[in-house]
């Protein structure tokens, strides 16, 4: 069931009702049953097998790792208790043995679950490319076609569970000894479709502890849910009409210049409204259950650099990459050795930043590939990685240039320039994430610069691509409204909290305004092929 279907709404209401009615001790069980019901409804029994495999193997691996760690600790404690002082070699030996054993289970867990993800998500991609390479040598067509099932939210729950496993390996917290409790953490329905990629230490306690009815919390959650539906149905779906038309037909219809530029710009708002709208629905639903998820967006279009953009966009993915890719690379012994020799070669500054530059490049390459099994996502990853890593690499240089030109980087104009520049860079990247292929993206970018057709703004041609004048007007107004709300959020004003704090009649007027805005202006209903959330497919 999609998040903005009537079925989900009914399911959510029923879950909330049962959740608050049952004894507090078994509230978690209600969530578990609801989560698996949700999962089975969305993916069928075949998909359930995969999430169960991940859940069971991760649970067992984590327990085993913890057992090994405890056994090692027990040996140390035993030696201490018996008064026998262990030499450093002995201690190191015990430690190395423990680490070696733990690593076996860690690697086994990572290989199995990431392996499943890679095979299911990237299997066809690899096979197709091998076949294409073989075709180039005249040996193509020998690999039989295969179709792999793609379980719902596999990217998300794999990252969630592998992050947990790595944390257990690092000894960050104790493993979960309750299998069903862990199963709930893995399959918790609000976050399974498109994240956020939650952390065990943030979620575990919330999932287990009792939750009492909280009027204010429910109201803010409900308001956030409405806001999510508004963003998805009024803005994202509407923008998608124009975006889909241009991206699908730019070649056959000969769209050029500003038409393509507007489509790319609109796509930026579409994907933001779609993804963050989905997040708001997810967060709102979870808030109504008294469980607060980790925020995933922080007004990304106010970012002043691509690096900052990725600290504001899909924050949990960025955080996961930082904790499990970036830092492990940067803090590894090999990196330390490399840094030493680089300092000797390139000086202190570049020697210091080259390794983080490389690490962020790898991290963002993975981010790109994570989005999908196509070359365009690889290119997308490289594109983003280049800007993020170059930002790290040349940060000092940029600072020196600003100083020389006497540019005040705190001024409104410079800040605006930075925001605009970042938006444009991200816009170019969107061609790769949205386009049908990497080559198509390049062609579209070329077509965008092939004509300075300002007349499209006055000759009504923009009105022939799916949106009439009234819909354009509405879309522009709503995007501005979205940015205004983001502005307030950026200033620390959480509007939904303000609304939740209003007197009853005023609050209900706002509720009705939001509901009717969605009912009237939402893109849904008969004749619409309701698109799933964009990130649901990742």
């Amino acid at each position: 069931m999609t998040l903005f279907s009537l079925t989900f709404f009914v399911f959510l209401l029923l879950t909330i009702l049962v959740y608050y009615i049952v004894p507090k001790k078994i509230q978690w069980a209600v969530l578990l049953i609801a989560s698996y019901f949700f999962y089975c409804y969305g993916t069928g029994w075949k998909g359930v097998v995969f999430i169960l495999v991940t859940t069971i193997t991760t649970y067992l691996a984590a327990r085993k790792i913890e057992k090994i760690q405890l056994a090692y600790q027990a040996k140390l404690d035993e030696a201490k208790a018996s008064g026998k002082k262990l030499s450093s070699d002995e201690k190191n030996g015990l430690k190395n043995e423990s680490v070696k054993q733990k690593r076996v289970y860690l690697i086994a867990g990572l290989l199995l679950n990431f392996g499943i993800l890679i095979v299911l998500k990237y299997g066809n991609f690899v096979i197709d490319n091998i076949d294409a390479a073989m075709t180039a040598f005249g040996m193509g067509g020998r690999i039989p076609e295969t179709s792999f099932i793609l379980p719902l939210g596999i990217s998300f729950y794999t990252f969630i569970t592998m992050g947990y496993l790595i944390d257990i390996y690092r000894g960050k917290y104790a493993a979960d000894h309750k299998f069903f409790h862990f199963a709930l953490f893995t399959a918790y329905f609000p976050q399974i479709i498109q994240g956020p990629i939650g952390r065990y230490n943030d979620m575990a306690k919330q999932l287990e502890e009792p939750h009492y009815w909280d009027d204010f919390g429910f109201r803010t959650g409900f308001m956030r849910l409405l806001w999510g539906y508004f963003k998805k149905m009024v803005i994202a779906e509407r923008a998608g009409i124009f975006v889909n038309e241009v991206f699908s037909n730019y070649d056959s219809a000969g769209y050029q210049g500003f038409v393509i530029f507007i489509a790319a710009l609109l796509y930026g708002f579409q994907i933001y409204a779609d993804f963050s709208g989905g997040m708001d629905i997810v967060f709102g639903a979870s808030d109504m259950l008294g469980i607060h998820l980790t925020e995933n967006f922080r007004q990304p279009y106010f970012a002043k650099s691509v690096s900052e953009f990725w600290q504001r966009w899909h924050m949990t993915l960025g955080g996961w990459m930082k904790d499990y890719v970036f830092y492990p690379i940067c803090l590894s012994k090999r990196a330390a050795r490399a840094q030493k020799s680089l300092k000797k070669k390139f000086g202190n500054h570049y020697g210091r930043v080259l390794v983080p530059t490389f690490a962020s490049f790898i991290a963002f390459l993975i981010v790109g590939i994570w989005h999908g099994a196509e070359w365009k996502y690889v290119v997308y990853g490289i594109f983003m990685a280049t800007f993020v890593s170059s930002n790290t690499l040349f940060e000092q240089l940029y600072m020196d240039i600003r100083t020389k030109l006497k540019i005040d980087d705190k001024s409104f104009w410079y800040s605006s320039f930075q925001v605009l520049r970042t938006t444009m860079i991200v816009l170019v990247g969107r061609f790769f994430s949205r386009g049908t292929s990497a080559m198509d993206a390049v062609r579209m970018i070329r077509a965008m610069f092939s004509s300075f057709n300002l007349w499209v703004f006055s000759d009504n041609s923009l009105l022939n691509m799916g949106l009439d004048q009234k819909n354009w007007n509405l879309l522009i107004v709503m995007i501005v409204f979205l940015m205004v709300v983001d502005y307030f959020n950026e200033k620390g004003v959480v509007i939904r909290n303000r609304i939740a704090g209003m007197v009853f009649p005023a609050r209900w007027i706002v509720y009705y305004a939001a509901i009717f805005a969605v009912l009237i202006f939402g893109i849904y209903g008969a004749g619409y092929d309701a698109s799933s959330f964009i990130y649901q497919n990742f």
Partner: protein
Amino acid sequence: MLIFFCAIGIFLIVRLTDVMVPKWTYTMDRDDAGEGTRYRDFYKLPDNTLDYIVVGTSHANYAVNPMQIYEETGYTGYVLAGEQQNMSCSYYWVLEAGKKHKLKAVFVDVSSLIADKDSSSLILKELLAMKPSITKFHAIFDCSPDMDTVYSALFPLYNFHDRWTDLNRESFQGVNESNYYLRGSALRFYSSNEYASDEVGIRTTEKTVLETDGTQSYSEAHMDISSDAASYLEKIIAYCNENDIQMIPVKCPTRHWNSEWTDKINAYLADRGANKIENMLDQDGLKFDWDTDTHDNGYHLNYVGNAKTSHWFAGYLKSMNIFTDHRSTDGIWNETADTYLKWERSTVYDCLYPRQKIYRYLSDVADHTDKYIVLLMVYQDAEAFYDTGMDELFQRMGFENGINPESQKSVVAVADRDGDIFSRTSYRKEELLGSFVSKDGEKHSYHIVSSGATSGKESILEVDGREYTCDFPGINMVVIDRSDGKVISRSAFGLDDKGKLCFEDHVPDGDAEDRLRNNTESEKTKIENGVLITNGNKKNLKFVSTDDGCYMIKDIESGMVLTPENFDNAERTPVTMQEETGLASQQWTVFTDSNGNMRILSLFADKYLAVDRSGNYVLTAEYGDESKCFELRSEHGKGKEQGAA
């Protein structure tokens, strides 16, 4: 407080739904049949006032006119058919009707037994029209072809929320439907003759249906009875049997049918012991010209075709001997009937035969040329539509040889009995400056410019410096009251860009009084007081006027009126004495030509009344010797009453 706000929410959603859902108002020029109006009107009827209903597809609602049937028989009925109404919807409408009325007969058009795929949007119209009830709830799930239709029927905003871009005053204020009198029927007062009905998508036996990839999916001729439709027909039969209602399967006229289906359905009905189809495509006395009796190249009947089938239907109802004539007792239907008759006459006049309106207008002017001055010019061309009737009337105005417009030539003309009567024609632009003195002694001037098609686009009809032209291609006229020099009427008639004859006349701005119409009373009295003489013989026939310039021709002794038989409008249709109904078929337009002959045109058929060699009345298209046999004499039978020739 919570309950109060929830109630407000529900109210707002209901109100919003009301605004967003289209009204589907009945008008005469829509593509659809105005389902909204038709079904809303049904629910307004008082309980237990219907004798019969008709359900089925749109062939039925364009074929049966319950108001005409009421005028002919006094039996009350309603057409609950709809566009592509499937048999399940027909069943539920039978249930709806049965809730409020003690029906005696249900007529089911059997088209939907041979069914194509259901149209979601059309089924949705049917469902939304039903009032909320358990019946409607069941209907939604039984009749909907897909889940989207179910959702839309339960929650109409699901389908119509995006109409916010099309909202207008009607969406918020609702519509005034007090001028819908047709009891579920839909009448179209035009024929669409772009191409012959034979050539267009008609379900002939040879037609096959191709899928988009070129493969043949099925031959329409061999389509079978839909089992789903059949099951609902059986439910209708069962319901009728339980409630002592006669169920009569019918096939309303359309080219969109073939005999193989009739045979299949008859065999099916025979198996179940039901009546066989009353096939209106195969009845004595019912003949159709698909090009002139339908409004969409043979699919659905227009007003003329409808009148024929409704007349047949009336006869069939009489033959059933189960109904009661309500004309002497019923109040509401009689009131509506009177209003319907007026509406029918004026609509036929306005929509069907504009040339009769032109004749009446010119006749009103010609009757009083002693009172009027007429100025006239041709803009672009008038020859294409100018006929002998118009010519005769212009002659009565004083133009000796009529206006006689030649193709694309300019024409200016003035009829002033106290001054000049002349007309001038040429290929050049014609310009005329003149003056006259009104009876009150004031001098007035006029300026006329005429441009034929080859001499530019200038057209001027000014009196005392004020422009009165209608700027319409054709003949533009101005009528001036000689007493004070005021322009009392400006008019134009000619062909529009689709080649259709049009007429418009206006009382000039600022004038409250329609002096031209007011002056027609004396002429009307003269006609009513006169006696119609046919071929020199008095036939005890008198003219009985209606309020709008039409006349019935009534036999003084029997009270019967002259009526074309079977509502036919073909050439040589017999015209006989029949019981008075007041319908348009019994109305005539009357005017006198320059020779004093009475020209009598059937309002319904737009043909002249004539007398054939056997002395029988017939209709003829051309005004010839057979038609030149009528004159009007005064009550005392002295002398020929003539027009102001």
